[in-house]
């Protein structure tokens, strides 16, 4: 995926990786490391907690979460932002992340990279870079584990039966 990103952006110029907390953060770091090893240049890497921009905070009924610290080391203005998340599902999180970035400044472009696209979009959003398309049912759960030594994507049905899909 890192190669594909570099190819389509013709290098690292103005590239700015932004992980969506929590799932996209480690993935953005990993992509950053790979890009750096290929190109010898490290693009800036940020992270955003999009809780404040979610459209479902009011309806969820659960506890209101304490916020994680968003971190944007350099201004986003004029940059080509690559939003990174682990799983693309309804698209609402990505919408929130885009609103966040636009409130923060004016990027020249926003792209999206996800490890898994599981379908069921509720907004007109598509990823520019997808690790794997993984058609799922609504009641299934996807868990991405990035602990060193035990990485993988787990698909869980309501009747617990795990399928391991290697990355």
């Amino acid at each position: 995926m890192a190669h594909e990103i570099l190819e389509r952006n013709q290098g690292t110029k103005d590239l700015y990786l932004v992980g969506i907390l929590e799932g996209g953060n480690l993935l953005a770091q990993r992509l950053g490391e790979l890009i750096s090893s290929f190109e010898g240049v490290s693009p800036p890497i940020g992270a955003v907690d999009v809780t404040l921009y979610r459209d479902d905070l009011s309806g969820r009924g659960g506890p209101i979460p304490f916020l994680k610290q968003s971190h944007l080391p350099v201004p986003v203005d004029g940059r080509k932002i690559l939003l990174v998340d682990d799983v693309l599902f309804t698209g609402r999180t990505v919408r929130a992340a885009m609103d966040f970035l636009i409130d923060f400044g004016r990027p020249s472009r926003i792209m999206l990279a996800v490890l898994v696209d599981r379908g069921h979009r509720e907004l007109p959003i598509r990823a520019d870079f997808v690790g794997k398309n993984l058609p799922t049912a609504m009641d299934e759960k996807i868990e991405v584990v990035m602990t060193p030594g035990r990485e993988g994507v787990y698909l869980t049905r309501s009747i617990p039966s795990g399928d391991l899909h290697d990355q």
Partner: protein
Amino acid sequence: MINRLISPEVPAFGPHLLSVVDLSPEVLTGILDTAESFLEVGHQSVKKVPVLRGKTLLNLFYESSTRTRSSFEIAAKRLSADVINISTTQSSVTKGESLIDTVRTIEALGADGVVIRHPSSGAPAFVSSRVGCHVINGGDGCHQHPTQALLDLFTIRRKLGRIGGLTVAIIGDILHSRVARSNITTLSRMGARVRLVAPPTLLPRGIEDWPVEIFHSLEKGIEGCDVVMALRLQLERAAGGFIPSVAEYARLYGLNAPLLERVAPGALVMHPGPVNRGIEISGEEEFTESSAILSQVEFGVSVRMAVLYLLMGGGPEEVLAGGAVPDKGGKE
């Protein structure tokens, strides 16, 4: 009282913020972490997030206050809430309307949250038991000032990197200070050692159980402290006979440059404001590098944003305070 904000992962907070007494170290840390995030909002090009869009916050101030009221107002507006300010001089409060009637009226107007500043200790708690919206104590009598204590905690953590293990001296009119009462609880709960420095007439009786060390001498009290927090002296205390004169108070309990050599290196000087120049803090000290007073003001907005977000960020089903109907017992 229904509290939907309790879950295994997230410690309890809400539905009101009346006192800091119920806040665990985990909740305090969570609030401070959340406030860190909101500090960022102040640096965005659009200094606003939509999380409280469509909600209304009412600032109900029965005492004059520029700082706290405007801080809450800015905080609410940055969260996209609508804000209504009511102060005693404008409302029917001056026409003798009771507190409970005022609040019921406001509730009927559809406020989602009310910040109350009131000269009577316990007034916000009283209101919270009788209305269905979130109540935030903006300072009540000599009782509590929770958001001030939270912003003081936040300031200390940002400036000194930690709270646990620090020694904090709180100086002045402890007897009448809601800031002191709230700070003593939060600071000691986060692992700081708290000293109170005051003349005996300005210390409450019955504080044997408080987690504090008492000093009457300013010199000894601030010796080696990491944080020196001066309280505002209400000038009418001299008339009340608590101190013989403001001048004598300033001489015995005013901070000045020579005294500040006794504190720990890099110590902070704090004050909840507004400062009586030349009384609590001598003129030249207030804006030296050790002073955190302006940071306190800046951080106050982020901390209040965190509080408003955590209390009011949920949907209407979470806006449930118990006991909206007081019991009707009388036979007649």
